[in-house]
């Protein structure tokens, strides 16, 4: 009995030493939560070239710093703007915009143009409850100017989300998923 157990102990010690040969690695699975890219598509009303500007950080947070396009628009025009969110860490890139529109009542984009930018952003689309969402919007340019636009995506974690028209960008009800600042130029 005693000898058997001694042998068993020795066997277990040895088993421990060889265990490392049977390991398997999982690949990083950031597929669902990373937003690497915000793409703004500008369609001028009354015809003209469609413009696309990106905030792009294809390796996600950390690593290589993101590249941020300058938004260059023509003066005294109205653009209808569509916002797209992508995850480029997977191939092909995943469109996250549908996740936002599926749960529109728990999300809200805010657009804050600096006063020097000569930009007026309005006409945000609504969620099913009639509260602004912001996946589409209308940007009207003034005379030649430079400035910034800060775009913030807020997420309401509460159940129910209690999203309301009067909620400010810094409402304590919601948290920030995206906060991106573009330089703008009207020329």
């Amino acid at each position, binding site marked *: 009995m005693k000898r058997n157990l001694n042998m068993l102990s020795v066997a277990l010690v040895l088993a421990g030493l060889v265990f490392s040969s049977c390991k398997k690695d999982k690949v990083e699975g950031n597929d669902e939560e990373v937003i*690497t890219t915000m793409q703004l598509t500008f369609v001028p009303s009354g015809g003209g070239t469609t413009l696309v500007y990106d905030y792009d950080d294809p390796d996600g947070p950390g690593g290589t710093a993101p590249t941020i396009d300058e938004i260059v628009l023509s003066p005294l025009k109205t653009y209808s703007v569509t916002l797209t969110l992508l995850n480029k860490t997977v191939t092909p890139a995943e469109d996250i915009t549908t996740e936002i529109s599926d749960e529109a009542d728990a999300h809200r984009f805010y657009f804050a143009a600096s006063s020097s930018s000569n930009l007026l952003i309005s006409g945000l689309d609504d969620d099913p409850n009639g509260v602004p969402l912001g996946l589409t919007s209308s940007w009207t340019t003034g005379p030649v100017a430079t400035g910034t636009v800060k775009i913030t995506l807020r997420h309401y974690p509460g159940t129910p989300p209690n999203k309301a028209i009067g909620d400010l960008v810094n409402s304590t009800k919601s*948290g920030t998923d995206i906060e991106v600042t573009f330089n703008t130029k009207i020329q």
Partner: protein
Amino acid sequence: MTCLLLFLQFISLKKSAFIILLSLLGLTLQAQLCTLKLSGHLEDADTREKLVGAVVTIRELGMKIVTDDKGDFVFEHLCPGPYSLYITHVDCDPMEKVITLSKDTHLDLNMPHARKSLGEVVIEAQKGVPNTGFKQELAGKALEETKGFSLAEALSRINGITQLQTGSTISKPVIHGLHGSRILTINNGVRQEGQQWGNEHAPEIDPFIADKLVVIKGVDELKYGSDAIAGVILVEPRPLRLQTGHAAEFNTAYFSNNNQYVVSGTWEEQVKKWTGFRYRLQGTFKKGANIQTPNYRLNNTANEELNFSVTAGWKKDRFNAELYYSQFNTKVGIFTGSHIGNLTDLLTAIAAPKPDDVFLGQNSYSINRPYQDVTHHLAKLKSTFYKGEHRFNVLVAAQINNRKEYDIVRSSTNTRPQLDLSILTLSQDIQWEQPRKNHFSGTTGIAATQQNNTYGGRYFIPNYDAYTFGGYLIQKWSKHDWEIQGGLRYDHKTIQTRRLKYGGDTINNNFNFSTFAASTNVIYKPSAKWRTNLGISLSSRAPYVNELLSDGIHHGTATYERGDIFLKPEKAFHLTGNINYQSGPFQLDWVLYTHFIRDFIYQQPVPDSPVLTIAGAFPLIKYSQTNALLMGSDLAFVWKFSPQLEWQSKVSILFARNQKTNDWLILMPSHRLSNELVYNFKEGKRLSESYISLEWQDVMRQSQVPSDKNGKQDYKAPPPSYHLLHLNASTTVQLGKQKITFSITGRNLLNTVYREYLNSMRYFTDEMGRNIGLRIRVPIGKTKS
């Protein structure tokens, strides 16, 4: 040499008329020739505890001596010659030892545990003081008062121990300001290999397993690792039953604050048919709803826990083995209002005097995102065999720890965890305990550990394999009033990491660390009342994987944490002094300590290089090294005014300096003081062990925090000092043959609004309000002889 024997024979043979004459002759002879001294020291062969109160008889002379509190005995004025000693102790089988005395002789004897001794008596013996250097323990009444609380909260009743918390449900112990991987937790003899990466990772141990919680420092640390910089926590279950029959215990508790209930049960048996076979089954279930602060209830702070363990033991004369399996499962909600998207949000939330109403007010047991789901499995086989008086222990253990963290996600259909870490650890220890000889005893051992981590989801730490090999040597010498102990340990650790990035890139890093530890202790007991102890230790800890390679956003603190692959092991020098006085109604225990830690690893904010992400800029925090100096003192005092009334006082003081920046170290516990008045009722016919106690706890404001001269170090100034009133009361009722213990615990009786510096939720919320707990304990025992 024969004088005494002859004398004895004369007595038995000759007529009484000669007796007086011969006695006188005998005494004269004795005075002339019999000057030898026989001294000895007794220890329990199993527990290595000193055997106090053992009766040593010299059969030939009928002389009896009871061993003193050091386990020592001395016979003087003996004549040369053969003697047979007969030794008895309540816990042990009687022992017979024949010696021939020709000069002064010292014997070191190990007495084996009685195979049929009473289980209860064995437990009492276990509570004695084994000859370890620095030791503090929580057992009996003090441990009962913490049943239903977390392991860290239970430990925080020990002077010098505080907790680092994330809300009220996640907490980890802090010893003298140090926590995490600087503390080794030994769960039923096995070094716990869980996931102690962050401040929000609590130890994965069911406190109901423990019969006592012990904190040790000094020489005995070396048995567990060279990296026990702050100390070792032993979670010790009761030894398995030795006596034939079975016993059970049922515990239940209810806590008013969060409607938490706890049910725990134990069943143990020694089967009559198979002498030597014993087993125990144990399980705990705990479920609590959202936590209530004095002014509001915090949503998503519920928790649940389900744990069980199975132990089977086999004991023969010269061999025993124990097979053990335990499983720990917990699911803990994290207050929704503390999950922060970016720095702007964090600053807004911190500036608010209280969290937004959407995060408050639900009285519910449901746990939503964000939450943690942790499972820990432990299996071990420990066998002990004896070769002569030498004892060998072989311990083999396997642990699997799986931690899943569920963050707030955009899509409510997403049911996957965002962080999924699995760690497998195998460990082997072989230990040789040499018998006590010429005042020396010792333990020598080798240990090996293999560990494998895999992760899925968000990157936090890489996949890795780690191998540790180590060896140690401990020697203890004791004689009369003196005890000297010393030990050495060396460990070598190899870590191979692989990060498989989503683009298909692989980042590999390999590390090799050698760590060395040494420790010595000198204990002097000038009298039964006084015990002084001085210890000097060196210990070193290899950097952990998270310190080397973490790289990502920490949502709890809205920071970007980055490791450093060039970190070196921390090297610590400790100087500890202890004075203990016990006499009549007074007890005093005073510890003074200094820890100097070279290359102390800590998180240093780097304010001028924020990391830009799509969620905004996050302040960078980098794992860095400095030289740290920690000095402090723990004082505990008990004064029994009368058999009924006693006053207990505890003071704990700590100063912690960062020597490179010449500033204070962040996140250190503040000075604290507690006073407790206990009234023990007289034993009654129906009610026994009844007492009521009131405790007044003062916690000072932490004013020793790093200044902002090297950039912003913290988001919010430490909270003000606070004062809490707690209550404990208990009684045991005799109902026929059944005993039932009822007890009440009241924490924060005055419903004081306060925040604790070491709780990361202090940025957002107040601490838990009044919490009244009711406990019932029913022991059921049956003994066959």
